[in-house]
């Protein structure tokens, strides 16, 4: 205990001395740690921006669901056989495929989708263009969407009395924008809209849903979508969708456009994805499908982040090394200037290790203060850049501060102080007391 207090007195005294000595040469001390300040500030701000954009990307992926496997129908590239100009292109996922997916053990939920590309949705004299999506009651769960009012599709909406097509449930759920355009003054739930000449009763409206970047890189806007039961969709719209494209008429026969599967655990997602790929490559002759595993993208994003951080660490390492050399240089000069002081201290009883300690503490104090200033400059820089790009260019730059780069910067600053301060400090301690005392 006494030892601790003795040590404490000594350390405190040495620290106070270091601060005073630095204060005497404020400008010089500042200039010599400039390298460290800049290095640390760069690390802090670059990680903040990197983490910020990474965070955005991760949120995006998480919205797609980390336990999901998304299987899409894909129009295959034109091959020789289709040169026969068959009007109807027949491709994509089938109801059989869908049934097969359900055999995979880890799959807990499976949502099929038919997407009928832009249709006119009418309400009295109002009209809005929107995609019609035929799906099942689990769609809202796998896609983590929320209802503003009413309900989503339920199990019984897809029930069917065998052979009786008239018992189809003509119900629909509207995307927020559709609801807004068609029902500017009334409550939409309970009202009817017209889709492809059929009347549909609105049972619910979704909350605003953020657009997300799909695997193909397209921004998808969900707010113009209308959701109807899958069976109803098949019955009312048929299996073939006709499209008019730059004058040419054509048709597509696609049973299912997309199937979103939810797997019980993130551990099993990649395996499930692989199993589905296997399944489809044996049952389909052409590559008219695509499997997307958001978790795989997440992994990839994390790898990209790690590479970014490695690069950053490399740059930071170089700038700290250069900064450290600056410190060493200035410490050597300091030792020469203060040779006489060293002689006096030695004469008054300082041991070699006391002298080493003193100059080491001085170097560490200098680099830690530099590191601290660097952290503050980094924070300030991030806010400034984010504010300026918002203010002048209207660009939102995401950023995120985390504790790790701050701790690492602090550790690195101290380490640089020790590493580059040690040699000058040792040099100081090896001076001969008598010669040091004679030094002018």
């Amino acid at each position, binding site marked *: 205990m*006494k030892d601790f*207090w*003795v040590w404490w*007195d*000594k350390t405190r*005294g040495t620290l106070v*001395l270091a601060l*005073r*000595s630095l204060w*005497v040469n404020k400008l010089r001390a500042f200039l010599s740690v400039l390298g460290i300040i800049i290095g640390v500030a760069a690390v802090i701000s670059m990680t903040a921006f990197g983490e910020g954009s990474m965070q955005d990307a991760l949120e995006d992926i998480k919205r797609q669901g980390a336990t999901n496997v998304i299987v899409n129908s894909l129009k295959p590239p034109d091959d020789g056989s289709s040169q026969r100009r068959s009007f109807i292109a027949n491709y994509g996922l089938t109801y059989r495929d869908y049934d097969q997916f359900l055999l995979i053990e880890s799959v807990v939920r499976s949502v099929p989708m038919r997407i009928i590309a832009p249709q006119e949705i009418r309400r009295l004299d109002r009209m809005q263009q929107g995609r019609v999506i035929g799906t099942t009651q689990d769609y809202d769960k796998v896609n983590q969407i929320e209802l503003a009012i009413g309900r989503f599709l339920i199990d019984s909406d897809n029930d069917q009395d065998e052979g009786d097509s008239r018992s189809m449930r003509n119900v629909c759920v509207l995307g927020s924008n559709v609801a807004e355009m068609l029902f500017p003054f009334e409550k939409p739930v309970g009202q009817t809209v017209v889709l492809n000449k059929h009347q549909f009763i609105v049972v619910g409206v979704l909350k605003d849903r953020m657009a997300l970047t799909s695997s193909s890189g397209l921004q998808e806007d969900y707010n113009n979508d209308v959701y109807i039961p899958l069976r109803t969709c098949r019955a009312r719209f048929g299996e073939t969708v006709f499209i008019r494209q730059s004058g040419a008429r054509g048709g597509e026969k696609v049973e299912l456009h997309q199937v979103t599967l939810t797997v019980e655990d993130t551990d099993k997602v990649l395996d499930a994805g692989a199993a589905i790929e296997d399944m489809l490559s044996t049952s389909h002759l052409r590559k008219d499908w695509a499997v997307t595993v958001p978790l795989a993208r997440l992994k990839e994003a994390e790898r990209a982040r790690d590479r970014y951080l490695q690069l950053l660490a490399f740059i930071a390492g170089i700038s700290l090394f250069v900064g450290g050399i600056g410190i060493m240089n200035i410490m050597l000069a300091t030792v020469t200037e203060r040779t*006489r*002081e060293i*002689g*006096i*201290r*030695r*004469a*008054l*009883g*300082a*041991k*070699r*290790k*006391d002298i080493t300690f003193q100059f080491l503490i001085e170097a560490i104090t200098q680099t830690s203060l530099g590191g601290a200033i660097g952290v503050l400059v980094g924070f300030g820089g991030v806010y400034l850049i984010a504010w300026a790009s918002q203010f002048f260019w209207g660009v939102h730059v995401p950023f995120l501060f985390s504790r790790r780069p701050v701790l690492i910067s602090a550790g690195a600053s101290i380490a640089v102080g020790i590493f580059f301060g040690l040699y000058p400090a040792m040099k100081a301690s090896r001076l*001969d*007391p*008598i010669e040091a*005392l004679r030094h002018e």
Partner: protein
Amino acid sequence: MNAVVETYDLEKTYFLESVVVRALRGVTFRVDEGDFVALMGPSGSGKSTLLNQLGCLDRPTRGDYFLAGRNVSQMDDDQLSDIRSKYLGFIFQSYNLLPQYTVVENIQVPLFYQNARLDDRTHRRCVRLAEMVGLGDRLDHRPMQLSGGQQQRVAIARALVNRPQVILADEPTGNLDSRTSDDIMQMLVKLNDAGKTIIMVTHENDIAAWAKRVVRMRDGHVETDVRNIERTQPSHEANEEFLQALSEILAEEEAEAAA
């Protein structure tokens, strides 16, 4: 009388590139407790070299040196540092105060290296010493703000703070005018009267005249070693306060040592 300093055939040789300099050529020399020795001699005769040996700043090439009974001629660097911080007080020609420190802090430096706690008591003691040498109103001044005489008085206070067995002074008045030199010498004589052993190098006969004993060196030898019979006497009225404070501090030290 107890011998505080005893050297036997002390030699110091510097091996330079082309020449060998024999700065001390066998100095056998003894100083008793309470003595006041003036080391004199021509330039280059080895006075500073001997004083550095006595101050444990260097080890002899040959010979033995006993400081208060301990043979220090074989000690390593750390042990010598310990000896310096605990048993020796230094007064230099150029004062050698630390510029970053205030008066009180300068006085405290030797204690800093003693591995002892620096508490309020040590601080009070340093303040008392500063007051004793007449710098009670300058406690927080830096050396740069003090005159040469004032700086040397701080150095004296610093040399006393660790209750040394010997005070070593290398031309303590070399940078001072004669009036200030007198002040400093008055203080040293009074310290000596109070029982402190002092060894002082000087060139000036006036200064040496304050000492009890004068040792003359030549070419690394002790040439003559005589008692000073016509010793300059300190004036008593001038330093009443100093004496008063000194006796108080010494009494305190004794009381502490007894406890």
